[in-house]
């Protein structure tokens, strides 16, 4: 990404998010910094529990507080620090400037209102429209996201629709106010492969049409490879690598990124008896090691790695960075 002479739309700096639990505080997001430029799609990848969803929710100030708490850091969006906004200001921001779509659309849609009523509500909250105008716009949006017979289906309830259709409705709703940034958290994970392909294609097409930036949260490296310009790899609440998509897939620097890429069965390749694996498992956030959090599983670990935690150093030219003392090179 040529990012040198542009200003980022979103700039997250040293963000720390903590949850208090019965066993003590858990840092779900631990000192992360990243930028998203206009029109850019940034993927956030990593295994379950690494902090992807909490990152997305925090940007919109949607984490439950308590038990959650932003300990430190700033979230600059379009010139304003979102951590400093009042709840009312934030509400105006949500759904208009920044929208979010979730993995399971059923939890985000209200089952007792028709799809149309929910869309009209969102539109009228953010735009000065009559009910009739909002309804027309909603029908238009449903058509745009590929819902057949939108004029008829707009009056249906969420449970009358298939999973793929509900996710399209969510996308229509998220895009209806023309946001500058869309946060999509595993938008196709709950869908079947063929539906997933339909919905992903739709999202990418609309992102282009609407000139939006997008943060695409997913555990599917295939989806990242096909849809993102850049990706961030998270592990135990940290960003451990960030790179332009070609670099990340062809020259992964972090041993964890490398391990993840190696362990996916590739359909195009010959059958092999042993898949390369990453040994062991993700450490518990309550009992993190002092040094590198990946050290126990890392084939390249040395004593140095176990002493101090490596930090990401971003190369000012490429924008790539890795948190590792012995990167793959």
């Amino acid at each position, binding site marked *: 990404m040529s990012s040198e002479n542009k200003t980022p739309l979103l700039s997250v700096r040293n963000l720390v998010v903590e949850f208090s639990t019965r066993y003590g505080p858990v840092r779900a997001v631990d000192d992360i910094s990243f930028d998203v430029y206009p029109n850019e799609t940034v993927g956030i990848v990593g*295994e*379950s529990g690494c902090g992807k969803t909490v990152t997305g929710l925090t940007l919109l100030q949607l984490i439950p507080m308590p038990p959650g708490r932003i300990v430190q850091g700033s979230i600059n969006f379009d010139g304003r620090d979102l951590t400093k906004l009042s709840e009312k200001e934030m509400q105006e921001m949500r759904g208009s400037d920044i929208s979010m779509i979730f993995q399971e659309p059923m939890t985000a849609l209200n089952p007792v209102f028709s799809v149309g009523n929910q869309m009209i509500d969102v539109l009228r909250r953010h735009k000065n429209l009559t009910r009739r105008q909002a309804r027309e716009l909603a029908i238009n949006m449903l058509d745009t996201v590929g819902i*057949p017979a939108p004029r008829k289906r707009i009056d249906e309830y969420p449970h009358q629709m*298939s*999973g*793929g*259709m509900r996710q399209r409705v969510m996308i229509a709703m998220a895009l209806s106010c023309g946001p500058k940034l869309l946060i999509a958290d595993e938008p196709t994970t709950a869908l*079947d*492969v*063929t*539906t*997933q*392909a*339909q919905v*992903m*294609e739709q999202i990418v097409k609309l992102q282009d049409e609407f000139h939006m930036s997008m943060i695409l949260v997913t*555990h*599917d*490296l*295939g*989806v*990242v*490879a*096909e849809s993102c310009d850049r990706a961030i790899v998270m592990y135990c609440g940290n960003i451990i690598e960030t790179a332009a*998509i*070609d670099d*990340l*897939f*062809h020259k992964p620097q972090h041993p964890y990124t490398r*391990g*993840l*890429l190696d*362990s*996916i*069965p*590739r*359909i*195009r390749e010959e*059958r*092999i*008896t*042993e*898949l*390369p*694996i*990453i*040994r062991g*498992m993700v450490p518990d956030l309550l009992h993190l090691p002092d040094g590198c959090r990946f050290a126990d599983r890392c084939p390249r670990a040395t004593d140095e790695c176990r002493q101090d935690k490596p930090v990401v150093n971003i190369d000012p030219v490429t924008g790539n960075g890795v948190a590792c003392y012995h990167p793959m090179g």
Partner: protein
Amino acid sequence: MSADQPEALLRVEGLKTYFPVRGGVFLTAQAQCKAVDDVSIHIGPGETLGLVGESGCGKSTLGKTIVRLIKPTDGRILFDGSDLSSMSERALKPHRRQVQMIFQDPADSLNSRHSIGNILEEPFIIHGIGDAAERDRRVARLLDVVGLPSSAVERFPFEFSGGQRQRIGIARAVALNPKLIICDEPVSALDVSIQSQILNLMLDLQQEMNLSYLFIAHDLAVVKHVSDRIAIMYLGRIVEMGGADEVYERPKHPYTQALISAIPEPVPGGKRERQILAGDVPSPIDPPSGCAFHTRCPHAQPKCSEERPELRDVVARTGEEHVVACHFDV
């Protein structure tokens, strides 16, 4: 097809599993959900048949019917020469230890109030194997085989991660030296780094114990990695079946072609030309007439909605069986 018939460990013929449902146009009428509709498959000793299809197409129902957790509506389940399809629970018991099942979410299938030791000992008790000391030895060996510490015996399922729980599920399934394991999405709920560990474990065990697998999954890349042959299912029926490489490299059914084309590949650089299917999977309660795929098929002709295509042989490059249910050569 006929050549390998005598060697099959499992041979399923014309299997149907219908569920009664209230539905259809008249809510009072009793409709039927044809979850499995006229399925015939076979699996040889030490062989893996992969079963792929979208949500609700009947994969789990087929698996559960084969292990007789569900009684079939019609058809035969020939296992090692005996027909399990209409056996009584008592007659089934000696066969049960030969055919085991592993589930997607082991948490649901492991009793949370029992320790791992109890869970793994249970199959031995049910089948009257060994005294207490012998059973302890066997449990310890099982834990070792699936790569869990011996201290696991005293712990409970909730104390383990998803991947570890799947290891426990696998240990329980192989406890009685079965010949066939129905694996229902065994790695779908796991993260990639753990998924590869479990797949390797399953392949190792297959080698050591000469196990046969029916490997159910929606991820075609995973299925191709572990399977000798692949069956593609759509709305209760097998629409294509053949050697894993053959089906992947020369898919003959338009649905198989669409499934392969839909897989997002972890290789950046230019989006591939992709064949996107329109619409959603229709309901198995009221499946489309003729070829059930005709509502989404890019090659559909008038004949497709009128006449159901039967599975027919297509010539495989390798001379193996390769069958497809489509009227045309597309």
